[in-house]
C-alpha cells in the first residue's frame, strides 16, 4: 500500500471543505484539498476581475460572475427555461436549484443568511410524526454554532434571535452587531404593526425581524472583522483594507465586491500554506476501497488542463468528501458505493420558494443595502408542522428584481407603452421606489424517491456521468405553500401594499398545481439529504460525526448529511457540523500519532 502524503484528503474547496481544512490545519494536520473546478484567485486583483465579469454580463444571474471550466459543467438557474442543463431532470417536478463548481463554491454567490436550526427541527419524527430525527440535538450543536459564527463572521444580536426555543450560551453574543435593517424593512415592520395570523389552532404574531448574516457589521469587543484578503505570489497574506464593513453594494449575489460577505476563499486564505495544499482542476472520480474491510485506500482524480487530463491518486490517513450534496453522492455512486438500501443519493431536499411582490402606498426606496436584511421567522416552527410544512420569508431590498427583472423591465415596460421625457422620469421615480418583494421559502421533508442517480448516457467532457434527479414536491410542502401565500397576503393587505404577484411574469419558472392553485416556484440552492446521518447503520449513510458507516476512514460532510432541513438556510449548520467533525478527526489522528510513535511523528513520517 502506498504511503499517505497528507493526513487528510478533502474533496471540495467550498465552505464545508474550507472550514474543515481550517480546523484540521489549526490542529497541526496536513491537508490535501482537491477542487474539481478552477482555482479562484486569492489576490485582490483576481477577485476584482470577477466583478467586471458581472458588470458586463447581460444576464446577471447568481452564477454570472463565476463561470466554471467546460470540463466541470455546473447547473445554472437559467437551465430551467429549457431544462437543458447539467442536471438530467426526470420529474415529476423540476428541481429548481443550482450551485457552483470552483474554488470557494457556492459561497461565492450566496446571500449570507446564517440562521441556526430550531431545536424542534432536530426531532421532527418523534415530535410531529413526520420526517426523521437527527442523531444530534440542538444542544449538541450549540457550541459548534458559536464556532461557525466566528469562522464565518456572523452579525446579529442575540436579543433578536431567541425565538422558537433557540438558546445561546450564557453571556454569548454574535461576533458583530446586527446588520442595520433597511428603510424598507423598517417601513414594513411599522406597516404590518401588530398583525396576527391564524395558523393551525393558534394565532401567531408576525414580526419583520433582523436575521443573522455572514456580512461584516460593527464588531463587538475582541472581534476583528475579516474583509478582502490579498494573498500574493510569495504566499504572504495581506488584509485588502476593504470589506471590513458592508458598504451596501446591493450585490450579495452574484458577487460581493469587497468580500464583506463571507466566502470560503476567505477561510482558505487564512490557512497556513505549509499545512494546506489546494489542487484545483482535480476532479475526484473514484473512491478506491479495500473489499476486505471497506477502508478507503485512495481517491482517484482527473487532473485536467485544456482538452486532456491525467489520472492521479490521492492518499491520506483519512478522507473527507466535501464536494456538495449532489457531487458527494455522484462520486460515491461512480465508485459503486450505494450505502444501505441505496441511500446514497436518496432523500434530496430543497426549500421550494415562491415570490410575492407588490407596490407600497409610499416610497420605501429599495435597490439599496444588502439584498435582504430582514425576514419573517414566526412560522418556522409550531404545532402545525404535524400537518403541513413550516416556512420563512426573506424581505427583499432589491425590489422586484428576482421575479420580474426590475428595474430594467420596469423601464422597458414604461417605454414600450410610449412614455418618455419628464413623464417617464416621474413615473419611474414613483414605481421603482415602491417595489416590495418577499421570498416564501417552504420546508421539504425527506422522501427516498427524491434522489440523485447517474445517467451514463450523458457524459461531461471528462467522461463523467451527469447527475439525474427524480424530484417530487409532496402534499406536506404544497399545503405549506398555501399557508405561506395566505400569510404574505395578510401582510400586504395590512400594510396597504397592492399585490402585483403575477405568475405569467415568471413563466419560465417551474409550476405545480395544488387544489386549483398554480404555484410558480424556484429553488433556494439549499440542496440537502443525499447521504443522511442517523444512529443506525442500516438506515443512514453516516453517523452523527458524518463518518461513513461502511467506510470507517471516510467522512461525507455538508448538507447531504441532514436528515431533515427545517427552514434555515443550510450554510451555518454545514459549517457547524464541519467544525464538529474536524475536531473529532483531529482528536482521533492526534491520539493515533501520539500512541504510535510519539508526539512529533507527523513531521517525520512523510
Amino acid at each position, binding site marked *: 500500500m502506498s504511503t499517505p502524503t497528507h493526513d487528510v484528503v478533502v474533496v471540495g474547496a467550498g465552505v464545508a471543505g474550507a472550514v474543515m481544512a481550517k480546523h484540521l490545519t489549526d490542529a497541526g494536520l496536513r491537508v490535501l484539498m482537491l477542487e474539481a473546478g478552477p482555482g479562484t484567485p486569492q489576490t485582490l486583483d483576481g477577485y476584482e476581475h470577477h*466583478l*467586471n465579469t*458581472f*458588470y*458586463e*454580463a*447581460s444576464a*446577471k444571474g447568481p452564477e454570472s460572475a463565476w463561470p466554471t471550466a467546460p470540463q466541470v459543467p455546473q447547473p445554472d438557474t437559467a437551465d430551467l427555461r429549457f431544462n437543458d442543463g447539467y442536471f438530467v431532470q426526470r420529474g415529476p417536478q423540476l428541481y429548481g436549484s443550482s450551485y457552483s463548481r470552483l474554488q470557494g463554491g457556492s459561497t461565492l454567490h450566496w446571500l449570507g443568511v446564517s440562521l441556526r436550526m430550531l431545536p424542534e427541527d432536530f426531532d421532527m419524527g418523534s415530535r410531529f410524526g413526520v420526517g426523521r430525527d437527527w442523531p444530534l440535538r440542538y444542544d449538541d450543536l450549540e457550541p459548534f454554532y458559536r464556532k461557525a459564527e466566528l469562522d464565518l463572521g456572523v452579525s446579529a444580536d442575540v436579543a433578536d434571535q431567541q425565538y422558537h426555543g433557540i438558546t445561546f450560551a450564557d453571556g454569548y453574543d454574535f461576533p458583530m452587531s446586527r446588520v*442595520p*435593517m*433597511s*428603510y424598507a424593512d*423598517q417601513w414594513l415592520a411599522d406597516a404590518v404593526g401588530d398583525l396576527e395570523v391564524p395558523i393551525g389552532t393558534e394565532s401567531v404574531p408576525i414580526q419583520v425581524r433582523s436575521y443573522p448574516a455572514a456580512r461584516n*457589521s460593527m464588531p463587538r469587543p475582541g472581534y476583528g472583522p475579516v474583509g478582502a484578503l490579498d494573498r500574493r505570489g510569495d504566499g504572504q497574506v495581506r488584509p485588502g483594507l476593504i470589506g471590513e*464593513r*458592508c*458598504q*451596501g*453594494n*446591493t*450585490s450579495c449575489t452574484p*458577487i460581493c*465586491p469587497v468580500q464583506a460577505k463571507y466566502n470560503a476563499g476567505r477561510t482558505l486564505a487564512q490557512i497556513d500554506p505549509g499545512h494546506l495544499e489546494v489542487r484545483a482542476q482535480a476532479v475526484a472520480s473514484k473512491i478506491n476501497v479495500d473489499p476486505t474491510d471497506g477502508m478507503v485506500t485512495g481517491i482517484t482524480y482527473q487532473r485536467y488542463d485544456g482538452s486532456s487530463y491525467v489520472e492521479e491518486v490521492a492518499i491520506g490517513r483519512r478522507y473527507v468528501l466535501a464536494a456538495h450534496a449532489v457531487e458527494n453522492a455522484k462520486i460515491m455512486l461512480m465508485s459503486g458505493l450505494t450505502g444501505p438500501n441505496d441511500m446514497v443519493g436518496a432523500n434530496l431536499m430543497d426549500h421550494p420558494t415562491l415570490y410575492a411582490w407588490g407596490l407600497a402606498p409610499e*416610497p420605501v*426606496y*429599495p*435597490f*439599496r*443595502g*444588502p439584498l435582504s*436584511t430582514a425576514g419573517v421567522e414566526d412560522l418556522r416552527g409550531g404545532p402545525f408542522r404535524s400537518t403541513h410544512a413550516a416556512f420563512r420569508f426573506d424581505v427583499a*431590498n*432589491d*425590489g422586484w428584481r428576482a421575479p420580474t427583472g426590475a*428595474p*430594467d423591465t*420596469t*423601464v*422597458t415596460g414604461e*417605454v*414600450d407603452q*410610449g412614455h*418618455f*421625457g*419628464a*413623464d*417617464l*422620469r*416621474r413615473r*419611474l*421615480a414613483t414605481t*421603482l*421606489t415602491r417595489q416590495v418583494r418577499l421570498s416564501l421559502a417552504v420546508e421539504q421533508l425527506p422522501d427516498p424517491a427524491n434522489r440523485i442517480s447517474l445517467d451514463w448516457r450523458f457524459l461531461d467532457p471528462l467522461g463523467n456521468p451527469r447527475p439525474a434527479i427524480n424530484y417530487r414536491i409532496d402534499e406536506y410542502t404544497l399545503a405549506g405553500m398555501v399557508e405561506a401565500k395566505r400569510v404574505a397576503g395578510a401582510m400586504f393587505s395590512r400594510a396597504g401594499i397592492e399585490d402585483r404577484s403575477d405568475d405569467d411574469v415568471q413563466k419560465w419558472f417551474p409550476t405545480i398545481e395544488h387544489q386549483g392553485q398554480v404555484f410558480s416556484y424556484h429553488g433556494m440552492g439549499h440542496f440537502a439529504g443525499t447521504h443522511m446521518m442517523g444512529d443506525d447503520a442500516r438506515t443512514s449513510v453516516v453517523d452523527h460525526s458524518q463518518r461513513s458507516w461502511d467506510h470507517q476512514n471516510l467522512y461525507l460532510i455538508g448538507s447531504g448529511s441532514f436528515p431533515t432541513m427545517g427552514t434555515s438556510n443550510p450554510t451555518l449548520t454545514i459549517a457547524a457540523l464541519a467544525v464538529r467533525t474536524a475536531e473529532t478527526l483531529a482528536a482521533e489522528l492526534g491520539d493515533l500519532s501520539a500512541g504510535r510513535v510519539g508526539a512529533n511523528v507527523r513531521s517525520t513520517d512523510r
Partner: protein
Amino acid sequence: MDRLKEFVAVSERLTGHRHIELMGTGSAEEYLQTLRRAVPEDLVEDLLATAHDLDGHEDAVTVELLADPRLGPVAKNIIVLWYCGTWHQLNDDWRQTYGADPVDTHVVSANAYLSGLQWTVARAHAPGGNMQGFAAWADRPAPEAEAEPERTNR
C-alpha cells in the same frame, strides 16, 4: 462632435434628464457609437433631424417619432440605453423590414451598467458599484429632483 451634441440634445428630451446629468454618466459617446453600429447612418440622421424638428412640440414626439415604424423602436432603444446601459436588439420584423441591427442585446460596458439613469431615478445605485456606504440603506434618501429639462447652458 456635432453629431454627439445632437444625440445628447435628443436624449435629453427622450429621457427627461438634463444635459449635465447625461454627460455626467460618462457614457454618451459609447451610446452614440452603439447606435451607429446597430443602425445605418441615414437612419441616425433621420432620427436626429426628426427629433430636432419637433423641438418645442412635445405632444408630437409620440406621434411623429415614437409611433413611427422605422424610427420609433430605435428612439425607444435610445431611452433604454440611457436608463439601463443595455442595447436591446431590435425585433425580427423591424430587422427584416429595415435590414439593420446586427448587434445582439448586450450591456454596452461596465461603466454603462453602473451609470444607468434607472438607479439615480430610484435614489439607488447599480448593484455591485457606486455603493452608498455602511448603514446608508437604513435611512430615507433625499427625494428625486423634479425633472424639468434645462434649456440653457448647452
